[in-house]
């Protein structure tokens, strides 16, 4: 079973081919969002170098979000097109699950954080239990200060991963004892990480439907935004 995995949810544009036994190849560009320009060429070059044709692919995996609005749409439409054209199944995997999986077997909490702008992050808390990645919270879009509170209540070591690390490392380090941060080679969305989570689903015949699948944007409601704005204004007064 050859799986093609595509992740364009963050600044990283990445694709990988994996079979049941190993990762056959992967491309990662973590430089400026130019996903719509380079993604198809990346997939083409990956397949060519592996001497594979798109018809040799048995299923697809795509990042379903949260992440960049445009990036998620590029990934979803590309994979939907490939899935429809080849009549092979596809499955969406959470960007946060995939990032957490980069840090497989890390003891304590694994906490992916993605910049959600306006001082917020997309995040969730994970732990590894019996070699399995287990999510321990909802998928959240919250202010970095609120995340710090949640983590400090857990009183466990925590390792952060994701583009939010670049922005918030200092504040996290200063406010959370026993925190560590993913090294650079793991601190990037990798299609291979997502592929492995996806393969496990596709093997069990869990897949998504091209007509009903939509990116998971995870946005704050307007009510929440207005409440925050009021809070800010009160602070300023």
């Amino acid at each position, binding site marked *: 079973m050859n799986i093609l995995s595509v992740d364009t949810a963050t600044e990283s544009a990445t694709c990988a081919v994996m079979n049941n036994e190993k990762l056959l190849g992967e491309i990662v560009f973590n430089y400026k969002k130019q996903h719509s320009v380079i993604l198809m060429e990346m997939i083409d070059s990956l397949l060519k170098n592996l001497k594979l044709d798109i018809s040799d692919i048995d299923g697809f995996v795509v990042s379903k979000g949260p992440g*960049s*609005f*445009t990036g998620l749409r590029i990934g979803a439409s590309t994979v939907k097109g490939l899935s429809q054209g080849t009549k092979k199944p596809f499955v969406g995997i959470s960007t946060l699950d995939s990032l957490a999986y980069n840090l497989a077997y890390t003891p304590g909490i694994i906490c992916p954080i993605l910049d959600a*702008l*306006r001082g917020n992050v997309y995040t969730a808390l994970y732990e590894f239990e019996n070699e399995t990645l287990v999510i321990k919270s909802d998928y959240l879009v919250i202010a970095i200060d609120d995340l710090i509170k949640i983590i400090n209540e857990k009183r466990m070591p925590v390792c952060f991963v994701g583009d939010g690390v670049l922005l918030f490392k200092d504040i996290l380090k200063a406010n959370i004892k026993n925190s560590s941060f993913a090294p650079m080679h793991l601190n990037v969305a990798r299609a291979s990480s997502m592929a492995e989570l996806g393969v496990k689903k596709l093997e069990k015949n869990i897949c998504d439907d091209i007509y009903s699948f939509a990116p998971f*944007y995870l*946005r704050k*409601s*307007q009510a929440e*935004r*207005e409440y925050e*704005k009021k809070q800010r204004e009160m602070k300023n007064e």
Partner: protein
Amino acid sequence: MDFLLDSVEKTIKLGEKIGKLVKSGDIICIDGDLGSGKTHLAKGIALGLDIKEYITSPTFTIVNEYEGRIKLYHFDVYRVNDPDEIEAIGFDEYIFSDGVSIIEWSNLIEGLIPEEHIQIKISKAPEKGENFRIIRISYWGIRYKYIEEINV
């Protein structure tokens, strides 16, 4: 800062001066009644950004993108009924990007405008004549101090 102008050409010229000064990531809100010249001012800003393409009002497309000295995102949110709608098209990723954002009718999505921005209000001055406009420029945030250099 207030400018009293009496022609479209002068409005464009003022926009051009602003456009020459703006920096990557700047946010410029333009408000004023229909026909007051918001898009003409935007055209001037685009000229100042060395954009050669013809600028049209993005009333129907909501946002137009142009390549210049810095990338320009030109929004017109007149047709937006609810700030949630504009937020849902990835508004934040535009305005917090490296490009320059111009937002016409920004008052309709006030809650989404970051604290630091340039505000340009255009009002007609019928007592002076049909073509007269008062253009009031204010700014929030030290990064926009360059606005004070503008004169006509």
